């Protein structure tokens, strides 16, 4: 069980990069981009085929980023130049990518167990540092000796990577171009009147988002040891779940806060799923149903809460008014009583 929590942390940190991409389109650009289901696999496919053909892990992973960037830009062009609505642009690209991904891989599954990947390289370097035994001692001292992971390498490196991306993204969103992207999602006609080509901003935002998604897909393939044509199904919903859970738990006041929250949300999501699967009655195949239920809940509960708040406020106000009424009445009665005297 505790090891399940550790692997939730590991994979959560990798999926967090995908969730940051979803955050960029869904929250910043206000563009629900379904390309994600396809571009996640594109990242995995590109990296897998390159690794199998002997390219270095770094180059293979970098290529995944570029492929995702290209996929996102095509979605952006479909929407801005082709004037196709946002949802449909994403769906079309997602479907097109299914065939493209299959072409890239040449088959529906590429195992990577015998390849050297970013993950294996990091583990190798890490094992030379001897940090594992040090950290495990620490855990023993805390009385958690039996819940140590096989290695701390992945948690460490993924924490570093996702935080670097988080900081880079929030810094980028403060640059002049970044501000223009945010304003495009916030008030398009306003930013147009300040001489911004909003089409370009959308294309750029979608490209960066899908580059992150593909990067995440590439890392997941290397982490799991295979790339599979079906690994992206429902990815957009997982991304949304992470964003919504993160914002609900950790807050979204500023960009810096929200991006951190998204990472937290991705980890919490993995833990929730891991815990749910401990329940006897649920099966692995139920994960997508659970995810959909989480997102539906996260979307509906705030609405119900708002309504209740409004109701209780109204009730309070009504009581105040009634109080005033009785006070006035009382005062009048006193006054008439006095005049009667």
């Amino acid at each position, binding site marked *: 069980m505790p090891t399940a929590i550790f692997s939730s942390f590991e994979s959560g940190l990798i999926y967090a990069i995908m969730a940051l991409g979803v955050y960029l389109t869904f929250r910043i650009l206000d563009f629900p981009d379904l390309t994600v289901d396809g571009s996640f696999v594109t990242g995995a496919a590109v990296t897998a085929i390159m690794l199998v053909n002997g390219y270095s892990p770094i180059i293979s992973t970098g290529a995944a980023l570029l492929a995702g960037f290209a996929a996102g830009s095509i979605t952006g062009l479909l929407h801005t130049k082709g004037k196709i609505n946002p949802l449909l642009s994403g769906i079309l690209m997602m479907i097109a990518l299914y065939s493209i991904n299959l072409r890239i891989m040449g088959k529906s599954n590429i195992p990577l167990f015998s390849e050297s990947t970013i993950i294996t390289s990091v583990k190798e370097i890490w094992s030379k540092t001897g940090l594992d035994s040090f950290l495990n001692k620490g855990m023993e001292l805390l009385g958690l000796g039996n819940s140590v992971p096989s290695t701390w390498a992945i948690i460490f490196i993924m924490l570093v990577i996702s935080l670097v991306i988080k900081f880079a993204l929030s810094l980028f969103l403060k640059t*002049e*171009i970044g*501000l223009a992207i945010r304003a495009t999602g916030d*008030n398009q006609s306003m930013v147009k*009147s300040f001489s911004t080509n909003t089409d370009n901003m959308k294309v750029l935002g979608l490209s960066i988002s899908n580059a992150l998604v593909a990067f995440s897909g590439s890392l997941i393939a290397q982490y799991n040891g295979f790339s599979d044509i079906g690994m992206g199904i429902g990815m957009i919903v997982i991304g949304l779940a992470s964003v919504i859970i993160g914002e609900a738990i950790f807050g979204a006041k500023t960009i810096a806060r929200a991006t951190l929250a998204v990472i937290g949300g991705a980890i919490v999501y993995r833990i929730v799923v891991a815990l749910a699967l401990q329940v006897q009655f649920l099966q692995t195949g139920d994960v997508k149903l659970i995810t959909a239920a989480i997102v539906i809940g996260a979307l509906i509960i705030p609405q119900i809460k708002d309504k209740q708040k409004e109701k209780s406020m109204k009730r309070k106000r009504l009581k105040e008014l009634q109080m005033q009424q009785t006070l006035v009445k009382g005062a009048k009665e006193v006054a008439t009583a006095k005049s009667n005297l």
Partner: protein
Amino acid sequence: MLQLNQIYKVFNQGTPDEKLALKSLELTLEKGEFVTVIGSNGAGKSTLMNMISGKLIPDAGSVIIDGKDVSSVDEYVRSKMIGRVFQDPMAGTAPHMTIEENLAIAYGRTNKRGLRLGVTKSRRSFYKEKLETLHLGLENRMNAKVGMLSGGERQALSLLMATFTNPKILLLDEHTAALDPSRADLITKLTKEIVSQNNLTTLMVTHNMQQALDLGTSLIMMDKGQIIFEARGEEKQKLTVEKLLHEFQRIKGEKMLNDRAVLI
């Protein structure tokens, strides 16, 4: 500075809702001229503003700004030269961004956007200095989200954002109409100050005749997609609401007679 030649614009062409919104419209603005625009609802005032800003492209005719024919230039390119404030106080700012971030967006109108930070120390003090000119205390709330501001504050900020980078042309479309009277007065006062201090070439639509007379160096009246009356310089200064109404009736009457003549 601005020249409109024989502008035509038809909406919903070829449908029962067809509407000739502008018809052989001619207008010239000198540099530094401040023109107020009046006219009944549906006269084509907003359409005229949209022709200049590039939000709409004329069906016929040309728009010339600072000697350049911009008739078919994209809105976002044209807006390098044009500052705009809309009627809706929500329209001119980004609500989920802070005051200083909004100013940074506005600053980018004339300065090419790059990967520099939008708000730096020196820029912040520049923005602050500009906000102080509004006398609303916004300079102390630069990190507040603009969505938290009142309508009047937002409109004042919109006005500042549209003007602090010295546009060649300033377009104001009933920008005080959605505000309560005291706030409308404030925005009118600020408009007067800003336009005269920066000597901005300005076109201001208003539904308030008195305001149209009090402000500006020239006045035009629109009706049914045409400019039916123009007054400049001294002639404008001598105008009163009564004269204006009288003028309107006279022109309308003449037109009606002409129309009837055509029918007969």
